[in-house]
Every structure is written in C-alpha cells, then in structure tokens.
C-alpha cells in the first residue's frame, strides 16, 4: 500500500463555522464541486478553495476514496485483543501497525493492552496472519480474536493521520 504518512510540518488550525460547513458537505459528497459548495454556503468559490487547501495543508482534513473491504477482496474482519508481556505495548503496537492487513491499532487500558482491527481474504490467510505474523511478534503473549459476522455501521470519519 502506498505511503500516506502525514508531513511533519502539520500545525494546528482553528476551524470556524464556515470550515465546519465545508467539511459537512464534503463528508456527504467528497466530489462536490467548489462552485456548488460556494453556492450552497453563499460564499465565493475562491474562499472555498482557500479553506479546503488550508485544511488539507495543515493535515486537519483530507478528502479520500474509502474502498469497501469486500470489494477489495477481504471477506473477514476481526477485532483482536492483544496482551503484551516483557515489552512496551507502544512498541508492539507500532510493529503491528506496519502490517497492511492490520488497519486499526489502539493502545488501550484494561484486560487487553492493544486492540487491533484486521482484514483477511480467507481462512488460510487468517491462520497465517494470526499464528505466523501477529503471534510471532516479540512481546505478544496472547491474542483474543472476535470475528465480525455482520458490520452494521462503519464510518471512519475521525482517524489519526500519522498512519504507519
């Protein structure tokens, strides 16, 4: 997969109502023309262009294509709890984040040390991912998986941009 890591030059910007309104329209339709957004919000097209550019350049917002996991060939989605011993959960989590099938990684507090979401094309690939790849990472004591039978909702609207 291609490199989407954010630039290190990102800076914090405050979003005003106009910015929020633009984000709301682009969430509904990411391909909406600048002209149509301008008309909808009753502001100049150049203002819309400048606002979008400012939010993109500061790594506040991106407009992207999200691919359906099934259309991409991944039939299985699992939530796996990871217990770590003898190593920092952060370090183990970063190693897991480098694996393409692992699409979400969170260091958590509680019975588990890390929660990850993974995709798999089939059972054989899943077996290899769990026993071969994830289980072999140094510091991984126990993996506790749950298979998603039916995903009713999945809106990744808020995400970290410093992806591995």
């Amino acid at each position: 997969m291609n490199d989407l890591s954010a630039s290190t030059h990102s800076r914090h910007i405050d979003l005003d109502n106009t910015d929020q309104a633009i984000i709301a329209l682009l969430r509904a339709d990411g391909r909406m023309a600048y002209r149509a957004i301008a008309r909808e919000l009753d502001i100049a097209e150049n203002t819309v262009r400048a606002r979008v550019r400012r939010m993109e350049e500061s790594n506040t917002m991106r407009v992207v294509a999200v691919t359906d996991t099934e259309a991409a060939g991944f039939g299985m989605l699992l939530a796996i709890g990871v217990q770590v011993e003898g190593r920092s959960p952060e370090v183990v989590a970063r190693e897991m984040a480098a694996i393409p099938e692992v699409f979400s990684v969170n260091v958590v507090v509680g019975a588990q040390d890390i929660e990850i979401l993974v995709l798999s094309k089939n059972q054989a690939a899943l077996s290899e991912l769990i026993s071969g790849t994830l289980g072999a990472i140094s510091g991984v004591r126990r993996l506790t998986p749950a298979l998603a039978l039916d995903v009713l909702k999945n809106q990744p609207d808020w995400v970290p941009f410093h992806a591995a």
Partner: protein
Amino acid sequence: MRRKLDAADLAIVERLSRDARVSNRDIAERLGVTEGTVRARVKRMEEEKLIRITAVTNIDRFKDAALAYIWIEVERSGQTKAVAEQLADITELGFVGVMLGRSDILAITMVRNAEHLAEFVHQRISVVAGVRSAHSTLGVNFIKHDYRMARIVS
C-alpha cells in the same frame, strides 16, 4: 457478495485514495484513458457502494479525544441483530458489528475521557432494550487507522 474491483477500477481508486479532489481529467491523463471512462467508473463504483468519497478529519486536531471499544452482551442471543440495529442509529457510534467471540456486539466511539465514556455507556447504551451488559476499553494512544478501508453499509 459485492463484485470485486477490476484492475482499471483499482488504478483509479489508488489515485483517489490519496486525494479524491483530483480531477477526472488528471486521472485520465495519468492512466491513458478518456475522461469519460474515469467519470463513468467512479460513478458506477459509488452507486454500487464499492467506494465512498468522503472527507475524513484528523483526530489529533480534536482536544482530549480517545477511542473507546464497547463490548455488549445481549439478554437473549435472538435479540442480537435487533439490538445492533438500534445501536447503529446512535450518531456517536462510528462502528457497530455483530461479533462471534468475546461478546455479542462491538461498538466503537470517540470520547473525551473515562468519565465521559462511563456517562455515554450509562445513558445511551445500557438503556437500549435487550442490552444485558456492556464493558468498555478506553484507548490511550490511537496509533493507526487506515481510512482507505471500511465496510460501506450506508
């Protein structure tokens, strides 16, 4: 099952997954196809819900934002689907899935802190008919989320 993307679709999506504000003409020039081909394929993929073009915002730009995993057990197994459907209507939940193992349903949301999480579970999750128990895990460091991949359900 949804149809899988073919090689031409994947080439277009690869470009759009980095920056979906790029024009059809730019994509067409790069791939050596006509602008009409790009437009038609993007439209078809969106209509068939194979892709969704949307704005995503950076969680790091929100103050005190943490991800919470809420594992829900239902009263009777036969209620699982109905409970999950009700949970999917809660705006604050970004993910709702019926699970095999660990618990019956997994719901994911963004909260400010542990106190906010406890309040949210108490006031919004536990009150849903059929919910027997809910236990949550609070994220302390959101390391990765590949937003280019999701189940497109609505």
